[in-house]
């Protein structure tokens, strides 16, 4: 089965908003989906309801596709940019909502209230927003990611948005574009010339966690193979070991993961590896329990409310897990660049010995930028 076939099989209905009919994506859907799956709607689909989704509706939302134009801002600051957390200047470009994979810990479970997988069809508007912003901040080193509310690449066999995005960033070398994914679909990216400021990154975890918690995602080995292909093609690649999940064999499994990465990649192949421990909003516990029971290492985790309001492991356990992984990488090669994602300054100091702003090899990522007001005025 081709990657496109598996997408076509996944979605049971495709609703296309009238205003989006002329878009290239809508036209492609008419070509590739069976006619009986497609409906044209005015406004939102009839079954569209707002508010909390039941666990069942959330699961169904992964099977219903809705193509529409995005009326608001495409470009936002990363949710990590909050008081009390050390922020790495990440901006997100939201080209849709919902993910076709199903990780037990996924934050979308407490974030989304639309019973559809939404893909925005007005990519041209997103790019013009970006162009405007670039015009006034072309000298700032901005990192833009597309994988916050959707996976950056898993639906690319259908949307092919990656081509337009890479082409857009090709001449904007002070800015970086990051595709963040848990899929292994990189064929579209390999079909065009790479751009050195485009980073293709993978969230990775030991294969044991992939199997237990990351349902419908590519295996660890397939993700690493895809990364290798992208690297050889000329893209930058990065890995996010995120979320680090405590489980009985966590130490052995994460040490092995570090060894696997080290055996297949060199520190100079990756600008960074980020580490983040399991975290979620407290209200997410209910839907996770309903959808995954208590067999999951995520639902049965011992989590406590942190000062940022999110549920986290005990701070000393987080520090131990980070220290273990960082130390292993540094033992393998001191040149590995590792930073913590969405962590408190205290955890940074206890796990790495220093605040990120004081660490030579990652300092530039954490330098504050001044583009907030421009985003608000878009």
């Amino acid at each position, binding site marked *: 089965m081709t990657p496109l076939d598996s997408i076509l099989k996944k979605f049971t209905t495709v609703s296309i908003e009238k205003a989006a009919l002329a878009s290239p994506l809508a036209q492609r859907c008419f070509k590739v989906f069976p006619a009986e799956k497609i409906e044209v709607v005015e406004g939102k689909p009839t079954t569209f309801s707002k*508010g*909390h*989704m039941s666990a069942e509706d959330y699961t169904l939302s992964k099977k219903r596709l809705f193509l529409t134009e995005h009326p608001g801002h495409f470009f936002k600051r990363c949710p990590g940019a909050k008081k009390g957390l050390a922020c790495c200047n990440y901006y997100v470009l939201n080209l849709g909502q919902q993910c076709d994979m199903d990780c037990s810990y996924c934050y979308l479970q407490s974030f989304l209230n639309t019973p559809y997988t939404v893909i925005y069809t007005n990519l041209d508007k997103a790019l013009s927003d970006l162009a405007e912003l670039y015009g006034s901040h072309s000298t700032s080193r901005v990192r833009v990611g597309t994988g916050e509310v959707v996976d950056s690449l898993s639906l690319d066999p259908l949307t092919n948005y990656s081509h337009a995005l890479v082409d857009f960033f090709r001449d904007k070398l002070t800015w970086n574009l990051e595709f963040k994914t848990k899929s292994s679909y990189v064929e579209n990216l390999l079909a065009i010339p790479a751009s050195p400021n485009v980073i293709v990154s993978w969230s990775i975890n030991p294969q044991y966690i992939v199997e237990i918690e990351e349902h419908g995602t590519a295996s660890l080995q397939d993700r690493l193979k895809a990364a290798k292909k992208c690297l050889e093609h000329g893209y930058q690649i990065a890995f996010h070991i995120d979320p680090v999940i405590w489980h009985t064999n966590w130490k052995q499994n994460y040490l092995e993961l570090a060894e696997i990465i080290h055996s297949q990649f060199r520190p100079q192949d990756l600008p960074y590896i980020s580490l983040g421990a399991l975290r979620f909003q407290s209200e997410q*516990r209910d839907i996770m*329990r309903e959808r995954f029971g208590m067999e999951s290492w995520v639902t049965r985790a011992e989590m*406590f409310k*942190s000062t940022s309001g999110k549920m986290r*492991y005990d701070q000393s356990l987080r520090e131990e897990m980070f220290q273990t992984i960082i130390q292993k990488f540094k033992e393998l090669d001191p040149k590995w660049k590792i930073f913590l994602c969405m962590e408190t300054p205290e955890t940074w100091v206890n796990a790495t010995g220093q605040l990120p702003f004081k660490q030579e090899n990652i300092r530039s990522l954490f330098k504050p930028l001044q583009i907030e007001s421009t985003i608000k005025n878009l």
Partner: protein
Amino acid sequence: MRNDVLYVWNSIPLNSENSLSPKRLELCSLDIEDAISVVYPQLSFCGIYKVLEKLPKSIGVSSSRVYENYGYALDSKLAQLLTTLPSLPAEFLDWCAEHSLSPRDLFPLLSLTNLQSVEEALKRISSLALSRNLGAQILELAVECRLLSLSESSESCASTGDEWLQQLKAKRYPQTAFSDSEKQKKMLELPWPKDFQLRWQRQGDRSGLEVKFFVSHEKELPKFTQLLQQTIQKIEVDSNDTP
């Protein structure tokens, strides 16, 4: 609502708890949904459910409109929660209504396939007359312990809500409880000055020792800083002596 008035809609008493009242007020000029809002200006989620349950089914009241009047849009999650309420013990529902539990407080119940498995715990929450906050915490932990098949033998001995909560936490978070107790032991073994009051505390995702001393005059401060300095020195000496 006036406590001394029996409100009636098309001859149906809306607040039957006042049925003996000599004063009657007819609300038939209103829709039944709005009449309920007049009689009960404030109702919690379970409170609405209880009021609707008492009304004859033949009235044909739109429950979604009633819930909307109180600010609850019956999305799919709330609709699902509503289907569980009839299976809950009546005394627990009364406690929920009385303490204005929010739907979110009750969402943990949705993960159970068999609500009877927590029936005893729900009855105890109401019989111990717990506060909303304490009851909601206990409810979630009791559900999780049930889902994890952890036995309830020890918590049934708890005589207060706080004690019960601590027992449930120890059961639900065994590793953290163990690590906290080890850290506590280690910290308390340090050569603290006797004038210091020490209390182990968990504050969200961090645990540690709260160290207190009492000062009645700023001149006393150096004494405490010296004591603290001596403690630090002793700790340093001890750790250097350790092979």
